[in-house]
């Protein structure tokens, strides 16, 4: 019933409908909807595996979840959408036993539950892969999977049994990982697969994935979706958080949208579209039609000449990179991650030694200059790995906002706390960082707001040159829109920008030139006027250019 209303009401007063819709859902009770489920993928016998009722969670100064109701059916892929800071991670953390709700109840698998720890949740059949991974870096994938698990024959670890079990999981779902590789040597995609294996190994019934695709390449995402669909076929339920509407529409059966901590509607994926979802999430329309004006590119700001550098494992990761970024231009680096992007970023900001070759900044040789010197020259960087590199999570938002320029916020060696506070207030406002206080530790920010913090810091430095590595990863649509526009306006002011992104669409949308990186080499550079997506795709995967 409610669905019909929903459909019919698309053009009418939207908010009234949302309220209406919600009202009806609550009045209906949960079981009654059964009759309407002819269309559902699972057919008539599908039932409800999870019900979260009236969940409220208050953090100092923020209501992260405000009387949220969520209902998930067995075997479905349920999407969870919402702006940065809408409360998605919090809601899932409550379900996973990380936080206690202030109010509300959880009914899982037909029983009322209070999960007081992830261990509880896992034992009851709920697994979660976090936005930021939680593996032990120095251990192998296998040991990470086994950590805390009792194999038959406990206290001895039965590795053979475990390998066998993992192998069968890999076979069924197609989620592959090198079991004997240490996590520290893994790409993020691989790390994520280990996390998923870890949950599946524990025979979970419900798997929560918090923004799994924000760190994946399109191909990896596609693989993940295949796996998710297989899971759903096998009766596993998946709760899937994402900011990418297209993905949500592609892979889910139903979608719940959170806004400002509230559930503003649960929709059937087949009967909704991107526009509607966007409006529900943000409350206004975002066109995302961005166009970069062609600025006459000026002189070279950053120039790399035949640069070689090794990765953490000591292998050559950059093999003779030559490129230049000019005033007023955005140079996009397209490529599948793990092909030298991280090393390129680090070599330019000075964190990684150059083996051979030269780096010039405005004509000055900075190949061996310190990070500090380069920062002062006007090089900014939005690093790929925000939590590990870009942030000191235990320090306050204020302190993190001056991380790279703390010396200019001091006089005669003494910190100017008033100035620091004013600076933070201004940036929090300007970049829409959602927080109750600038003195809260940065780790209390939501994933997307951490990203905003870093972007705010790097852009507000007024740099001459900016490396933006996956700058819109983890941002909601409004945030993506904002950042892309901001990058463009920076370039139009005459700044030089190196955009490293796995999102080919993003690169094509805002770059003036596009360089394709593969196995540490630049395989081709294209002007925007004559981009050939197919050819870029081919080069990205190592195909020859001819």
């Amino acid at each position, binding site marked *: 019933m409610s669905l019909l209303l929903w459909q019919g009401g698309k053009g009418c007063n939207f908010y009234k409908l949302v309220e209406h819709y919600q009202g009806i859902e609550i009045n209906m009770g949960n079981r009654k909807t059964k009759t309407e489920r002819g269309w559902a993928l699972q057919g008539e016998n599908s039932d409800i595996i999870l019900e979260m009722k009236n969940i409220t969670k208050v953090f100092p100064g923020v209501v992260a979840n405000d009387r949220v109701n969520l209902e998930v059916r067995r075997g479905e892929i349920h999407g969870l959408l919402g702006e940065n800071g809408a409360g998605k991670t919090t809601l899932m953390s409550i379900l996973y036993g990380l936080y206690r709700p202030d109010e509300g109840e959880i009914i899982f698998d037909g029983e009322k*539950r209070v999960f*007081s*720890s992830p261990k509880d949740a896992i034992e009851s059949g709920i697994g979660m892969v976090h936005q930021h991974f939680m593996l032990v870096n120095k251990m192998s994938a296998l040991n990470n999977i086994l950590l805390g698990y009792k194999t038959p024959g406990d206290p001895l670890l039965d590795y053979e049994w475990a390998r066998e079990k993992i192998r069968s999981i890999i076979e069924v779902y197609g989620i592959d990982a090198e079991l004997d590789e240490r996590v520290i040597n893994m790409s993020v995609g691989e790390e994520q697969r280990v996390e998923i294996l870890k949950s599946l190994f524990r025979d979970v019934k419900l798997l929560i994935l918090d923004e799994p695709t924000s760190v994946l390449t399109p191909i990896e995402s596609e693989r993940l979706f295949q796996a998710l669909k297989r899971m759903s076929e096998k009766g596993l339920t998946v709760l899937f958080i994402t900011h990418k509407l297209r993905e949500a529409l592609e892979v889910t059966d139903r979608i719940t949208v959170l806004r400002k901590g509230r559930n503003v509607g649960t929709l059937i994926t087949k009967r909704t579209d991107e526009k509607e979802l966007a409006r529900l999430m943000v409350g206004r329309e975002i066109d995302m039609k961005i166009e970069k004006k062609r600025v006459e590119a000026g002189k070279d700001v950053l120039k790399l000449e035949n640069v070689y550098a090794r990765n953490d494992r000591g292998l050559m990761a950059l093999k003779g990179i030559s490129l230049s970024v000019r005033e007023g231009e955005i140079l996009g680096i397209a490529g599948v991650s793990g092909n030298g992007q991280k090393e390129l970023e680090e070599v330019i900001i000075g964190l990684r030694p150059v083996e051979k070759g030269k780096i010039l900044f405005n004509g000055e040789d900075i190949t061996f200059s310190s990070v*500090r010197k380069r920062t002062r020259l006007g090089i900014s960087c939005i690093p790929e790995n925000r939590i590990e590199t870009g942030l000191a*999570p235990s320090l306050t938002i204020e302190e993190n906002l001056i991380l*790279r320029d703390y010396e200019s916020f001091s006089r005669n060696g003494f*910190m100017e706390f008033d100035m620091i506070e004013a600076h933070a207030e201004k940036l929090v406002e300007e970049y829409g960082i959602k927080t109750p206080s600038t003195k809260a530790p940065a780790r209390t920010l939501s994933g997307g707001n951490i990203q905003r913090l870093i972007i705010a810091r790097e852009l507000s430095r007024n740099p001459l040159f900016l490396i933006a590595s996956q700058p819109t990863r983890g941002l909601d649509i409004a945030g993506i829109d904002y950042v892309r526009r901001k990058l463009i306006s920076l370039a139009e002011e005459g700044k030089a920008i190196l955009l490293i992104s796995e999102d080919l669409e993003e690169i094509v949308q805002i770059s003036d030139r596009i360089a394709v990186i593969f196995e540490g080499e630049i395989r081709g550079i294209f002007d925007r006027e004559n981009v050939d997506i197919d050819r870029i795709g081919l080069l990205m995967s190592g195909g020859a250019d001819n």
Partner: protein
Amino acid sequence: MRIKVERRLETPKFIYILIPLASIIASLIFVGILLFLIGVNPIDAYSTMIYRAFGTKFGVTELFVKTAPIILTGLAVSIPLRAGLWNIGAEGQLYMGAFAASFIALYLSPPPVVLPFMVIMAVLAGMMWASIPGVLKAKFELNEIISTLLLNYVAIYWVEYLVYGPMKGKEVYNFPYSDLFSDYAILPRFFGTRFHAGVIVAFILAIAIYILITRTSYGFAVKIVGANPKAAEYAGISRKKIIISTMILGGAIAGFAGMMEVSGLHMRLRAAVSPGYGYTGIPVALLARGNPLFVIMAAFLFGLLYVGGSAMQTTYGIPVAVVDVFQALVVLFIIGGDFFTRYRISFVFREASA
């Protein structure tokens, strides 16, 4: 009933105050039980301690005299601790300071400028001694806990060798002492007690270090390194420089403590210049969570124990080593208490859902 241990994501603020307090109280109770077992009424013993420390002018000034070096070693541990380093070597740095100061006092320098010169050399010696583990850590990632700890033995035995051998005094019979310093090399004393000028300097230093680490950009850099070394590198802060400089700063302060002890108290170099003040700095820094103002408070607690400990020795014949026991217990409880910042214990009386 079942006991449940749960991980917490949010740590309530009061825990950070509760843990040190509870650690102190638990240690007091434990030591009380020990005292009881050897036939001493713990209440009597503790009240004797309190009385000795606060009851007389002598007691109060002694409290300050014993607290001052602990403040300094507490600082020597705290500063590197803020950068995430464990300086277990304040004791050795103190001994090297004591040695350098004594060397100047006994053999070099014209009388009128001898005091400042002693201070400078003691500070330099402490710095030098602390720079060894600092550099090894910065350059080769050598674990500073081990290197600082081992260097303590080197320093302590070095001083012992000197006072039994080359620096042994002419008029000290068979004691492991050097000769007494000349009057110029002795810190001024006040109130007709052992309260010497060094005590005042210790307090001033604590405040100065507080300002340094909370108000200056250097202190901010140290904080970032302590919070996330990788982010510090990215912020252009050289982690190596911070490692070496915090160690050296800690060493300088411990070195000064050594000078203060020989020049303010013993008036000569001797074996056992310090009854373990360098090690006492560790629980002090832990209790204070690296904050110099809290270091002063925590140092008073241990100063009280040292004063009371010697009172107990004279009154009940209990060895001063009881102070070491207390100290060790506090460290254990604090480290154990750290568990409670991350986990929550609850008692489940009946299973909520089977």
